[in-house]
Structure formats: C-alpha cells, structure tokens
C-alpha cells in the first residue's frame, strides 16, 4: 500500500534551477509514474534555464512537497525492498546485507 501527502514548502526558483543538474530526470519521471502521477510531460529537459516558471513549480511540487508517507522502494540492482513508514525510509540492512 502506498500513501502520498502534500506538504507545502516555500518555492524558490533559484534553488530548483541549481538542484536540477544533480537529478536524473528520467528516473524522477518513471518514479512518479510508478506512483500513478503523470504530471511530468517532457521526456527530457535540455536546458533548465530555458524552462518556464510553471515547469519549475511543477518540479518544486514533486521534489519538495510530495511525500511518500507509506510505501516501499525497490533497489534496481538487487531488488531489495526498503519500507517507508510515516515518510521515513528504512535503509537499515542486516549485517549480512552490507
């Protein structure tokens, strides 16, 4: 079961622009789609500075305001499942898993 909450945060366009290059946009998009959210329409983004503010606000919303409070993340390499409880992912591993 998966639960998503929205927690409002102050929008800062400069921060989003500075943060964007660190991001794998494709992974963000597919992660959102796996949560049933198709709000990101662009397939790729070449130049963040050329994007309209609406797009920056959309990124702000999905990056900073959208909280998966309940759910799980599956590791793409080893298929290990990490549970998310009350918005806190549990990344603890057993001694044999490190």
């Amino acid at each position, binding site marked *: 079961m998966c639960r998503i909450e929205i927690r409002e945060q102050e929008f800062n366009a400069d*921060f989003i622009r*500075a943060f964007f290059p*660190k991001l794998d946009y494709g992974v963000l998009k597919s992660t959102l789609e796996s949560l049933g959210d198709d709000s990101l329409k662009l397939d790729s983004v070449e130049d963040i500075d050329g994007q309209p503010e609406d797009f920056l606000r959309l990124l702000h919303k999905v990056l900073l305001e959208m*909280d998966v409070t309940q759910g799980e993340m599956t590791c793409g390499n080893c298929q290990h499942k990490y549970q998310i409880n*009350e*918005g806190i*992912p549990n*990344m603890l591993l057993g001694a044999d898993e*490190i």
Partner: protein
Amino acid sequence: MSRPEHIAPPEIFYNDSEAGKYTSNTRVQQIQAEMTYRALELLGDNDGQTPKFLLDIGCGSGLSGEILDEEGHYWLGCDISPSMLSIALERDLEGDLMLSDIGSGVHVRAGSFDGAISISVLQWLCNADSTSANPGSRLMRFFNSLYAALSRGSRAVFQFYPESDDQVGFIMGFAQKAGFSGGLVVDYPNSRKAKKFYLCLFAGVSGKEVQMPAAKTETGTVSNVGRQSQSTHRPPRTNIKHSAKDHINHKKHLQRQKGKQGVPLDSKYTGRKRRDGF
C-alpha cells in the same frame, strides 16, 4: 562520567526515554543550536542567497535540523535511532528523514548535497557495537560514500567529541583515504568546558587552495591544527561579524520581504547569546 558511546549501541542508548530526555533538556538544546550555527559558519554558509541542500548526519530528534530550517536550507537527516526520529517527526520540521546506519554508508545519489553537517555523532562510529562491526571499515565505508554524495567543492563539518588525539588521527586517516582534504578546528582550546572540535572536510576543490577556517579562542589568537593548515595570520576573530540575533532577524526580514509565510516571530529568545562556558 562515562561516554554514552561506551554504554550501548546508539539505537539502544537513544531509546524512547533517553531520546525524550535529550530533546527536552534546554541546556542540550542551547549547546546543539550553538554548535550547529558554528558548523554552518565553517561550512562557508556565506552568500545567504540560494538555500543549500544539506545532509544532517546523525540528525537525531532534529535539534540541529531546526537551525537548518531557521536558516532556510533544505535538508535530509539520517539517524539510526527510531526513537530520535519519531521525536523529530513530532517536532514537525521541514527536512526529510531517513532511518539508516552511517557505518553502512550514505545511501544517496552521487553529488546530491551542497554540504553536510554532523553534530555530536562521529565519536559513535569509533565504537564497535557488535563483534562483526569493525570501526575502521565502517569509517571507511562512511567517508567513501559521503565523498560521493557531496557535490565537488562542497564541505562536510563534524562537531564531535574525540576521546584522544589518536582517535582524531584514526578518523582523519580514513577521511583522507576517501579523498577529503581539510583538518581540525579547535575552538576555545584552553577552556576545559567550552573547547569544541570541528572536523572540516573538503570534497574536491576547484583549483584554488583551501584555507582552514580559523578557530575561536578566548584571547583571539588564531590556531589551526589542520593537515593543510597554513598560518595565515589573518586578523584574529574574537567575534562573529554581527550578533546571531541581528543575523537571524536580517534573514527573517528578507524572507518576509520575499513573501514567505510562517517566518518565526521575533522574540526575546531570538538568537539569544549563549554563554561560551558554564
């Protein structure tokens, strides 16, 4: 008094009762806040324009994260104690939280953070809490993954309570192997109570040489104990440019001007002076 990290593993020591006592102790609150401000200063938190995305290593119940909120940064905190994290949740901070053991590495995408702080945590990593856990390999895994998690040119600042000079050397050796440069800043080295250790690490630098920040001293002389420390003989800094209160009020003013909602009200407690000694 024996050191908490000698008593039990962190997730056992910081159980519900200890986590509650720790967080509600006003003296602890003051000291942690003061050290967090200092860590931000050492991080080179200077432009005050674009907020940073910071990692709070061993964030606990968010006493340090609260200051990051106040300073307008975005942050992710990680901690091994569920009890500490559940208090952090109740305290309704802006940052995100993650339950993880830093000795198993920092599990984030490479280059994610503009910097990292860690307040009163690092000494915990020097204690093997189970027979299988070797402090050396845990420190190595931690520093390697932290180096990767930071963007090039950013810094990590650790306030910590080393047991001995040997322990400092032990820790710094692994940081260096992971590729960090930097060193130790000892504030108030002559005061038994006010003396504080800050390990300042630089994750790759852009061309220019890094200079170790100056320590604070009672008399105002600059002293550095860093591997890269050059004696710069800059004018001694006995005080921060302006009072913490001015600084906070200035930031709040800017935030209000930008139309930010929910900027904390000014009060007589805003940025109050905390004594250096006790």
